[in-house]
């Protein structure tokens, strides 16, 4: 354990140092201009202190982001409109609903493509083409269109998230359902297994590792999708709305805090999926 910990800590420390250096360098000009206008001539140490504690820096220092994270999560009630917990929950719920819908669609598509030969040629190109449309262009159209139909709030965002995450699941699942080799399939045939038994007892278990790989990619994509869906319509809440508001008002620290919150959210969700994957793998006797 400690043998793994040391390199990780070293790299982390290096990155943080680099970040502080970058913050000083990038904020230097802003601070220098302000000071010059005020007629002040601060020394080197004062300049460093000022660059690392600017209210609207080009690049906030790590401790400023941590401070903002702490303030907007721990010190505010979760019902507050400025609470990051509140915004994170809004994004999380949309991402999770979208993830659920995307998973269902992805798995169903994969099952259909694997079992119905005609669908392979007719459906697969559309599935692939769907991902060539940039979600940034698509999101506003979908949000506005659904808004016109009276659909607002969570569902349109979930649909954007689902749109992004059905793809890796469908692709992984198609590969997984096709993983059993001819001998494994012939074996089923010698027992006169029904197509349903072939699916439940051979194809599905064989596809689980592929499914989990897809789920992990999809989970991260669902969070991105939910955030992107919060950008266009002037959403009131959510990490995306936080990002947008921060950039309107030049609140770089708020932007970075929202970014870090999004990263923590994704990492936690993907980590949870990884734990579920390991539990399933253990039950299925995979080598450690």
């Amino acid at each position: 354990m400690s043998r793994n910990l040391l390199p990780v800590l070293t790299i982390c420390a290096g990155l943080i140092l680099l970040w502080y250096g970058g913050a000083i360098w990038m904020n230097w000009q802003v601070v220098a201009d302000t000071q010059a206008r005020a007629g002040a001539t601060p020394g080197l140490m004062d300049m460093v202190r000022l660059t690392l504690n600017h209210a609207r820096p080009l690049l906030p220092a790590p401790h400023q982001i941590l401070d903002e994270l702490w303030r907007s999560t721990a010190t505010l009630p979760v019902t507050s409109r400025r609470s990051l917990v509140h915004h994170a929950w809004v994004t999380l719920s949309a991402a999770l609903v979208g993830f659920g819908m995307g998973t269902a669609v992805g798995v169903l598509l994969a099952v259909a493509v694997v079992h119905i030969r005609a669908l392979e040629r007719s459906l697969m190109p559309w599935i692939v083409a769907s991902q060539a449309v940039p979600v940034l262009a698509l999101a506003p159209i979908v949000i506005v269109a659904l808004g016109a139909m009276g659909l607002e709030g969570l569902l349109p965002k979930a649909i954007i998230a689902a749109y992004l995450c059905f793809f890796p699941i469908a692709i992984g699942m198609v590969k997984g359902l096709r993983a059993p080799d001819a001998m494994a399939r012939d074996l089923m045939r010698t027992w006169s297994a029904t197509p349903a038994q072939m699916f439940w007892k051979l194809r599905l278990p064989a596809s689980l590792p592929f499914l989990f790989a897809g789920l992990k990619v999809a989970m991260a994509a669902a969070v991105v999708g939910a955030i992107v869906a919060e950008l266009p319509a002037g959403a009131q809440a959510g990490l995306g709305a936080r990002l947008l508001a921060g950039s309107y008002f030049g609140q770089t620290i708020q932007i970075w805090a929202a970014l870090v919150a999004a990263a923590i959210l994704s990492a936690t969700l993907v980590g949870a999926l990884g734990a579920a994957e390991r539990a399933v793998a253990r039950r299925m006797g995979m080598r450690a």
Partner: protein
Amino acid sequence: MAEPVIAARDLSLVFTTRDGPVQALSNVNLDIAPGEFISLIGPSGCGKTTLLRVIADLEHATGGSIAVNGRTPEQARLARDYGYVFQAPALYPWRTVLGNVMLPLEIMGIPRAERAARAKAQLALVNLSGFERKFPWQLSGGMQQRASIARALAFEPRLLLMDEPFGALDEIVRDHLNEQLLKLWAATRKTVVFVTHSIPEAVFLSTRIVVMSPRPGRITDIIDCDLGLDRPLEIRETPEFLRIAQRVREGLRAGHSYDV
């Protein structure tokens, strides 16, 4: 004579491939009676696997006729008349040894409690008691192949089709498994069709040896080989054994099997 378990008449099979037709079997005539142990021997590519797969309804003849227990191979497959042992163990890696042996029973809708009991009995038969909860990768190659034999035996088919089940194993393990298989056969008197490349293995196990030759795959000789039910390994040193082995070798040579 009792109704043959397998009756092939002028059986032919042509594979259509991108490079044109491949004649895998031509004019195969073969009757196998209940309780016989038949070995198919011949050089690589002479159609042994193909013949076994036609019997198992995994491949369809393009000419002639074949009956399994007086029915079409498809009817026999649907009636679960046979167990098939492939050249590789092909155990499902996500199932324990017991889970693998229970799988055919599960597919046939046998109640859960009975499944476990029957699978355990079959595992005992191939000396794998105590390994029920292991996963395939925790077993040696020979143990995996034994587990796959237990799986083929699990629903107690009267006919056993085995495609080079011991091909990948070393001599010692192979001798041991040959003895076990012979015991099993002597005890149950199942009908066995057994593919092999090894002359001693064929002579040791069989009641009749079918010699095949390639291009196109056909039967060139059928050799009687009844050494009795009780065959210790030492029987391989007897003149009777060596005489039969010699005849098989000549049969293989006559089929131009080994182009030297």
